[in-house]
């Protein structure tokens, strides 16, 4: 199985811009993906991720910029001449051909020897060998998805593009397919670029996540890095939730800097802050924050805010989510893991919120509505 496909190639997008009549889908995109990685392109609908995929596949031409695969400029190469294959969101299986013929399609066009035999092997790999003579309409969604995958993989593409291929599947099937896809990718060592709006999926499957918003890539990196240290307001709120505080920098020492928010000081380590002067936003993940019934002792390692009032409590199974309103600061969300000893607290009680300085992160921009 390991000899079935060669290793993948790396992908580079330089200065890609795509304009459509009436709007610009991609502003200025730079992206570098090393070979053999599973990369997720994550973003909300309309952010341009599908357009990016289509440009890489050759189904659209960029208005400006270059696409390089394995170092070769393929910007103006036709799709049928690129070593790229796509697994489409709707699978796009040819209804007038059997599954076997579907999978063999690309091999036949490239005039490969023994197309049917190779196709059968590919179907076996996705455990659908027994259905080779059936038509796509006779298969279930999960089966069709696997055929679409086999049809793409059998061509040994340098780069495999997946356009939200799991969107139409129910939760359980989706989880199963996520595991299978990741296993296949690791086994054959291809470069996968997976487009999705589901952040859990992205963080779960990918080695590298690129978060895209409004035609730009805001941040790129390993899932944990992105989660623990988001660099922009969008990433901090799109990937998980964040509490954000905005203020002017009032103190700056060797290792940390602080802003003042409603009389309280909020500090962030300098090596976790993108911007070091002016008005900045500092954030913290809700699960890293705690609340206390009495004011905690001041400490250099702790950011303390309060007092405030609990205005909402939600039970979500895994955790309790508390919404605390602190005058002049705003609402702060705190997650408390449900380990059986849930803090007995009621709406309206007065509490203080604290979080460790080392858990704070400083953003490069300000949340919407805060621009000076």
């Amino acid at each position, binding site marked *: 199985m390991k000899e079935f496909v060669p290793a993948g190639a790396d992908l580079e997008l330089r200065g890609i811009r795509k304009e459509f009549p009436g709007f610009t889908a991609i502003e200025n995109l730079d992206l570098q993906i090393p070979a053999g990685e599973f990369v997720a392109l994550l973003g909300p609908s309309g952010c341009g991720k599908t357009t990016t995929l289509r440009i890489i*596949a*050759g*189904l659209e031409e960029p208005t400006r910029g270059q696409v390089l695969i394995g170092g070769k400029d393929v910007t103006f190469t*036709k*799709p*049928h*001449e690129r070593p*790229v*294959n*796509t697994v*489409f969101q*709707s699978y*796009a*299986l*040819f*209804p*007038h051909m059997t599954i076997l013929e579907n999978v063999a*399609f*690309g091999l036949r*066009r*490239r005039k490969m020897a023994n197309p049917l035999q190779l196709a059968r092997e590919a179907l076996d790999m996705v455990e659908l060998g027994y259905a080779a003579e*059936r*038509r796509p*309409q*006779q*298969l*279930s969604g999960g089966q069709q998805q696997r055929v679409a995958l086999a*049809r*793409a993989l059998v*061509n040994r593409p340098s780069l495999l593009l997946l356009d939200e291929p799991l969107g139409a599947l129910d939760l359980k099937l989706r989880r199963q397919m996520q595991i299978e896809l990741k296993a296949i990718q690791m086994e054959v060592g291809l470069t996968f670029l997976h487009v999705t709006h589901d952040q859990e999926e992205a963080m779960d499957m990918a080695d590298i996540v690129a978060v895209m918003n409004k035609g730009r890539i805001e941040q790129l990196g390993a899932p944990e890095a992105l989660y623990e240290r988001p660099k922009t307001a969008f990433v901090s709120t799109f990937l998980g939730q964040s509490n954000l505080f905005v203020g002017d920098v009032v103190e700056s020492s060797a290792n940390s800097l602080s802003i003042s928010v409603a009389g309280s000081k909020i500090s962030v380590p300098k090596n976790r802050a993108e911007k070091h002067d002016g008005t900045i936003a500092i954030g913290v993940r809700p699960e890293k924050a705690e609340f206390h019934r009495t004011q905690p002792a001041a400490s250099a390692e702790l950011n303390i805010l309060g007092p405030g009032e609990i205005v909402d409590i939600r039970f979500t199974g895994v955790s309790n989510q508390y919404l605390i309103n602190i005058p002049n600061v705003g609402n702060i969300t705190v997650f408390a893991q449900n380990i059986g000893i849930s803090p007995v607290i009621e709406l309206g009680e007065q509490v203080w919120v604290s979080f460790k300085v080392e858990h704070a992160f400083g953003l490069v921009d300000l949340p919407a509505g805060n621009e000076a």
Partner: protein
Amino acid sequence: MNRYRLSRFILPIYAVIALVYLLIPIVYTIVFSFNNSAGRTNTIWQGFTLDKWLNACQRPGICEAVGNSLLIGGVSTLIATALGTAIAYALVRYQFKARSLVSLSLFLPMATPEVVMGAGLASLFFNLGAGYGYMTIILAHVMFCLSFVVVTVKARVQTLDPVLEEAGRDLYASPSMVFWKITFPLLLPGIVSAALLAFALSFDDFIITYFNAGPVNTFPLFIYISAAKGVPAEANVIASAVFILAILIVIGTQVGSNLRQKRLFAIK
């Protein structure tokens, strides 16, 4: 409750009556094709016979006329289907400026009276010095069949998801391969449908043909010319045969595709 129940039946009963009304002339025509009529008149029932069906070509001129209609129909259908399919595909898949104008130009022939088109073409051919005959008839037929082909194929193209063609390109098929291996097979039912429609229109056309035929006799012309003195039963035979064939083809394809669908979804 009872009143509500009864009123549900009004529509189906009406439909049956309407269908009977629609089918009366057809039944009449078919029945009279078995009439043991002497000579050219076929107005009074004179007994059942299979004679006319077995010896239809003995009536002078009729089989030649039918032959001409078949030939003209075949050629016109080929040309109209090819031209019309191309236009239909372009209309659905491509963006271009003169869309409205093109749609309008295709609609007008369908809404224009045959008399106007017939007279117009006749005067055009006359001014060009072209003699009336097969060529002029075929040129005329292609013209009025074109719009109907476009409409029929267009409906089919609209059911064709563009992503299938994109998948083809993604899988190393050149544009012409994409057309022959993906687009064309999937459009085929619509194209065949359009071709049948074009053939039916051409075979049955009278008015436009009458203005442009010259010496050539087609089946509808034969009937019209006979109408003054009496249409022979053989004409009924031919028309009935064509009718039965057409209905069988249409019903056959519908039942066939229904069975195929059932078979496909039986296995999962």
